[in-house]
């Protein structure tokens, strides 16, 4: 949403621009200010819920901005791919994206919070917090289904650990 494109404004643009910049420039000839722009990368808006009128319920996870990770928040995906000398970080990230979408669709309207993925050696542990609006037998059906399907898909043992809550745990209202 920048007003300027993602390239440096060069002096050889349309004459209107040039004249405007010339008019703001100090009277010294040849010296003019360029406008330095950056790529669009809204670090100040990432993963932050904006303050509203006070009626928007927000969980603990959503209420804290990313700079609170490792201070007040933990990580949502735990693997060793980002350590020095370890490979496969990108593959893990792609797998994570698929897993989150898969679980969001398989448990429709039931996820109370973000899914936490933990990888230990070959094993993938998926920790869900689920609302109690499905019957337990239906939840077990979905759990058995997801475990088997994901194991066959990723060729590694997958285990689901589910915790249920009656309603979403609201931390504050923004």
């Amino acid at each position, binding site marked *: 949403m920048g007003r300027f494109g993602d390239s440096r404004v060069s002096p050889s643009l349309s004459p209107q621009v040039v004249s405007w910049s010339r008019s703001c420039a100090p009277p010294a000839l040849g010296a003019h200010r360029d406008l330095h722009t950056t790529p669009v990368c809204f670090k100040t808006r990432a993963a932050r819920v904006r303050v509203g009128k006070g009626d928007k319920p927000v969980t603990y996870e959503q209420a804290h901005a990313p700079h609170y990770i490792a201070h007040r928040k933990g990580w949502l995906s735990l693997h060793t791919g980002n350590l020095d000398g370890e490979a496969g970080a990108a593959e893990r990230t792609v797998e994570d994206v698929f897993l989150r979408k898969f679980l969001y669709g398989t448990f429709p309207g039931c996820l109370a919070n973000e899914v936490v993925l933990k990888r230990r050696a070959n094993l993938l542990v998926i920790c869900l917090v689920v609302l109690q609006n499905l019957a337990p037998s239906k939840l077990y*059906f979905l759990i058995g289904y997801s475990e088997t399907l994901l194991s*066959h898909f990723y060729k590694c043992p997958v285990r689901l650990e589910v915790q249920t809550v009656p309603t979403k*745990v609201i931390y504050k209202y923004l």
Partner: protein
Amino acid sequence: MAARRLGGSSWQQMSLLSRRWCLQAGSAGKREQNRYSSSSTTLEKTVENSEVTREEIVLPRRKTWDKLAVLQALASTVNRDPTAAHYMFQDDPFLMPRNTANSRLLSLSKESGRSAAKYIIKEFPQYFDKTTSEPNIPCLMPENLTPQIEGVSEAALKERIHLRRVKASVDLFDQLLQAGSPVSLETTNSLLDLLCFYGDGESAQEKQNEQKGDLEEPEENTSEQRSPKRQFQKSLNSSGFRWRENNNAERIFKIMPERNAHSYCTMIRGMVKHGAPAKAYDMYTDLLNERHKADVHTFNALIRAVPYLKEKFAERWALVKDFLNHMVQQEVQPNVLTFNAVLKTLRRCGGVGRGVSLSVIQEMTALDIEPSLATYEHLLHIFYRSVELQPSTIIAEILEEVEKRSFTPQDPDDANFFPTAMQACCDLKDIKLAYRLNKSMEKGDNWKFLDMDRLNAYWSKFFSLLCMMEQIDVVLKWYKEMTPSLFYPSTRSMFDLLQALDAANHLEVIPSVWEDIKQLGFSRKQDLLEELLSLMSREEHPEETQLAFAKCAEDIKAAHEQSGRDQAPLEWTGSALGHVVVLFSRAGRTQDAWNMMEHFQQINRIPTDQVMDEFLNCAKQTNCPDEAIKLVKLAASFGLPSTLKLKSRTEQEFELSEKQKNALESIQSDSDSSDSDSDSDRD
């Protein structure tokens, strides 16, 4: 503000958790500590406080820990956790099963989820066959079950047999014969093996394909008529397919140009498996005529079929001996399954079996064959399950053998040993034997023989034996440890527990038992409720207990009045109502008691004298003369002979105002003037 809200919701969840299995929490609080800190009781108090006023934060008291607390807490995690359900269930109060039916439902739904996933994997193998793991894990790859080799050839037939496609292989075989190309003996034998194993029905995969075919067919009348019939046939198939006359296996057998011993053996085994023992015996005589030798599996099958061939016990044993002699002549070595089959047949041989079984065991040890658990199970059956029960010490000897080692499964009947043994212990009413049996079950791999159903049966019987024989604190200790992790109590177990509590005069535990009953979902079982109410109301108890009992009675009343979604409301019986009135009266809740009294007319029952006396006592204590007068009116309307007595009691014990005295007098005139035969209406 945020912290307060969070605090409120988590305390509520804590109180939900602490409500589970109150019997455990109650007795733990009373006796030795499960918690090693000092402030466990204050924790419960603060829970109740914060439920009442949500806006205050109540700070808990500082805990002081014992020096060894950490070690003790770690030590308690090493053994089996008595509060957890089976490992296959998720560890969450909403997702834990409540009773046996629920646990079966949840494990079956998990299993059906797995088969749904397997169906998807089979339908779309192209998404699952990339090998991203190193080394390759074959069990996580989709299976390739379509036959690759096309065309009419022997190799194609072999492949279809290998893939267990019964119908396809039979068709291909017929095609091959029609085309005139001979099929080798080996291939024909393997085709016969396939047919005899599946009994000419279809294997599981083909059944699935057929079911899918049924669903995909358009809605015509013929298909609708066919599908229920097919389902009926399928249920027959699964329960035990009947060997039809001249089915595929027999047909192929007859048209075989040459047959060897293997063909005869397969046919015999198939016939025995699928319920045609007479034919199997004829086939065996054919085999002997052709001077072939049968193998050990065939003999096992034949011995198993003996009870269906002969009726009299002596004849059965003679036939078994015949078969064993043939085995010796044909130089076939028996194995443990042979002896198990002999014992299984001896089970159906009554007294003859009992005399001979021990020599069978001696034969086994002479041949150096280790007995399996099924051997012992058959022995127990022979000696302990018959009608004329002669006392025998064989169970002690069996236990000695079983305690020594850990068994591996060798026979499908092995799994029945532990439940049968526990049943025998119950019949003999011997608790020490049961303890020994428990120990041997925990040794090594022996626990693996008990699946969920048998586990439940085993522990239920053990629990009823405990309730009968042991002291109440031992019973309660076992109860705490066994539920809900090892078994879910049935109504029968609850009855046993109540009886044990009654015998030990420990009735104040009943309110926590009632909580557990509600948890198990038995709160609508009429007989259990009656038993509870009669136990609670039989005698007078101290004040606290009486109040707790009254609360239980109120719960039971609520259970009666609440009608579930599809259930009719529970009917009150006269005795149940009477007990509830007595319980309310003893706790001093006059209004509730009067409400219950009014129910009597609705169900056309008459309260007993004891009930009315108790009610009057209660009214006197709480000083409600109006209620007393109402009681007398009620008694008069029922036309009870005790009306006069009640009236006189009311006049003497209560201080009545003028109006009340007049009312009382008028009742008298009513009952005097009415006939003793006719019912008088209420005014």
